[in-house]
């Protein structure tokens, strides 16, 4: 049910109309009401709900950790994007690779990292995904194929394209998924990489999470083509848009594109229309946001929506849902306890990771140390 860039009919009434669409009749929400639960087994659907609830609780606790000064730096949350995150990650095999931006806690968990290790990274502890060296924006785990969250807007896109080059070079059957935000499609690296991936036929799926905002800037303010999936056309790449609030639809679309890339090596672009429920980062009060828009984001709540869908479809009953919620609450409590109990890095380890091949005369000087 996704719109594709190759279709002749425009996907919505006009290129600048998304704001209106969202607060008015809302095409995206209409479709959400009709969503079939697809052919997924009840067990799979319940697991989607569990994962989405887990990410929701995790992010709420991350925000709390920030106010308690357990978490520092920048902290960007996936609140409102849980259906997109879980749908996308369900389309990947463990051996597939993932590159993301800095809003990646949920992806790290859904790709298979223990929540405790993700929380420990936020807490800056040695047990974290990047040993506490990366922080919120820089999760990494080769075991599950997460090749990095990246804090520089667009930085992940050429890297993901290069990972796909390596797969193609070696003749592997893995696929790379490259996640990014709507605002990121305006940076040069996006266009350069899309062109290269299409030109060289590389197995990478570029996924744009369109939450309509890059900090305080709307898609309409920043993108001349505001129907972002159409940007693929310029590179003769397949592009399509999916309702990011619909976990089943996201899984279906992403799964199809990922498997196509696996078979043919062809790249594709998927735009998942989603919502950012809170500010850009934990400290942003988002005063620039219109009341309708903030309300629409609250109403669209993918976790609550999916919960009631599952209940009305008889996949879950109230008790079953509550039980899942208790279980994920316990998981998050355990993650926090794990993080809290983990050691801070020892300052003596400061120079341990500057070079992969140790250098004999590497500077290991602290600020007060003389050169000689």
């Amino acid at each position: 049910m996704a719109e594709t860039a190759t279709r002749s009919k425009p996907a919505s009434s006009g290129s600048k109309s998304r704001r209106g669409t969202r607060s008015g009749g809302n095409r995206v929400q209409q479709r959400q009401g009709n969503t079939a639960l697809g052919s997924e087994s009840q067990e799979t659907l319940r697991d989607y709900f569990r994962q989405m609830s887990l990410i929701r609780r995790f992010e709420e606790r991350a925000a709390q950790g920030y106010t308690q000064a357990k978490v520092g730096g920048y902290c960007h949350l996936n609140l409102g994007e849980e259906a997109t995150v879980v749908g996308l990650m369900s389309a990947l095999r463990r051996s597939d690779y993932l590159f993301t931006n800095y809003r990646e806690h949920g992806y790290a968990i859904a790709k298979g990292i223990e929540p405790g290790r993700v929380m420990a990274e936020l807490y800056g502890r040695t047990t974290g995904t990047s040993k506490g060296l990366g922080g919120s924006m820089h999760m990494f785990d080769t075991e599950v194929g997460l090749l990095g969250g990246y804090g520089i807007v667009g930085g992940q896109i050429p890297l993901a394209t290069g990972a796909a080059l390596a797969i193609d070079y070696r003749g592997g059957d893995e696929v790379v998924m490259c996640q990014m935000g709507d605002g990121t499609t305006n940076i040069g690296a996006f266009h350069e990489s899309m062109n290269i991936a299409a030109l060289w036929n590389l197995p990478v799926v570029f996924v744009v999470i369109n939450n309509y905002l890059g900090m305080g800037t709307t898609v309409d303010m920043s993108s001349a083509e505001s129907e972002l999936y159409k940007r693929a056309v310029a590179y003769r790449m397949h592009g399509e848009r999916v309702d990011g609030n619909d976990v089943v639809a996201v899984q279906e679309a992403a799964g199809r594109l990922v498997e196509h890339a696996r078979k043919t090596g062809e790249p594709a672009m998927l735009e998942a229309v989603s919502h950012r429920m809170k500010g850009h980062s934990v400290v942003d009060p988002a005063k620039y946001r219109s009341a309708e828009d903030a309300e629409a984001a609250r109403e669209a709540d993918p976790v609550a929506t999916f919960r009631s869908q599952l209940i009305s479809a008889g996949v879950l009953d109230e008790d079953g849902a509550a039980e899942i919620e208790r279980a994920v609450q316990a998981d998050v409590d355990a993650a926090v306890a794990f993080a809290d109990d983990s050691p801070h890095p020892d300052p003596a380890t400061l120079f341990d990771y500057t070079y992969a091949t140790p250098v004999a005369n590497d500077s290991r000087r602290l600020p007060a140390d003389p050169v000689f």
Partner: protein
Amino acid sequence: MAVITYRQALHDTLREEMLSDENVFLIGEEIGVFEGSYKITAGLLEEFGEKRVRDTPIAEEGFVGAAVGAAMLGLRPVVELMTINFSLLALDQIVNHAAKIYGMFGGQSSAPMVLRTPGGGGQQLGATHSQNIELYYAFVPGLKVVAPSTPADARALLKASLADNDPVLFLENLALYNTKGEVPEDAPPAEIGKAGVTRVGSDITIIGYSRMATVATQVADQLSEEGVSAEVIDLRSLRPLDRETLVESVRKTGCAVIAEDDWLTYGVGAEIAASISDGAFDYLDAPVRRVAAAEVPLPYAKPLERAALPSAESLNTAVRQTLEAVGHRR
């Protein structure tokens, strides 16, 4: 004379300059609707409108280059680069274009513009968001690089940068935005390329810029309580570099410690130390010391970040050790 923050001084000066010259306009990410990532431009969109306060897509190379082009036609763009880390995406437009327009075309055109951007670590923002890479720009002939450390300097140097006919990289610092100081409203623009002697002393010279210039004055004040008379030089401008003021001070004190937030090897301090060696070699009673950041991609975890960054304590230690070394010789 009002006591205001560094942030307020920047804001007020931008506003004044916009009022007095309609060719001055602001361009950058999140400077309008969002009111600036660090709120320097708060309220200016409302007052001046979208033509004068232009929010851009996330496209550093594109909008910095657009500012260069606009400057070539006589506008006076003030670009805000959210942090100096993101200036790297515009490096080509700054180094290969803005810096070359005047010289490469034999002086027929120039690119008078101000690139405002904060550097600085210490906020647990990790390796890519905490860098002090002003040196990349200070290395380039054709660019000017200024680095105010106080609200008064922020005002005087911003005025000077806007009056200048060359591209000026105007270095701010995350840790300075909330610092306060007296700002005389009628002070003239600063002279770009002139260092300031912010403490007069005779025992030792401490040289810093941006955040470390303020740390240097703190350390000098601590030491003066113990009877040490330290002279502090705030470079204010990295290119052009005021070698005369440095050398004159070291000829008087006979020793120097350089305080810099960037990395030591090939850093700004290396150029200063070389200049001291060029101009005051015969006067030195101890090796010139540099206090700089540990040479690592800056870790997120607080204990590691703290260990890696220079501070008043590390500067104080280096100054004491230098004075001891001098004592052994004099």
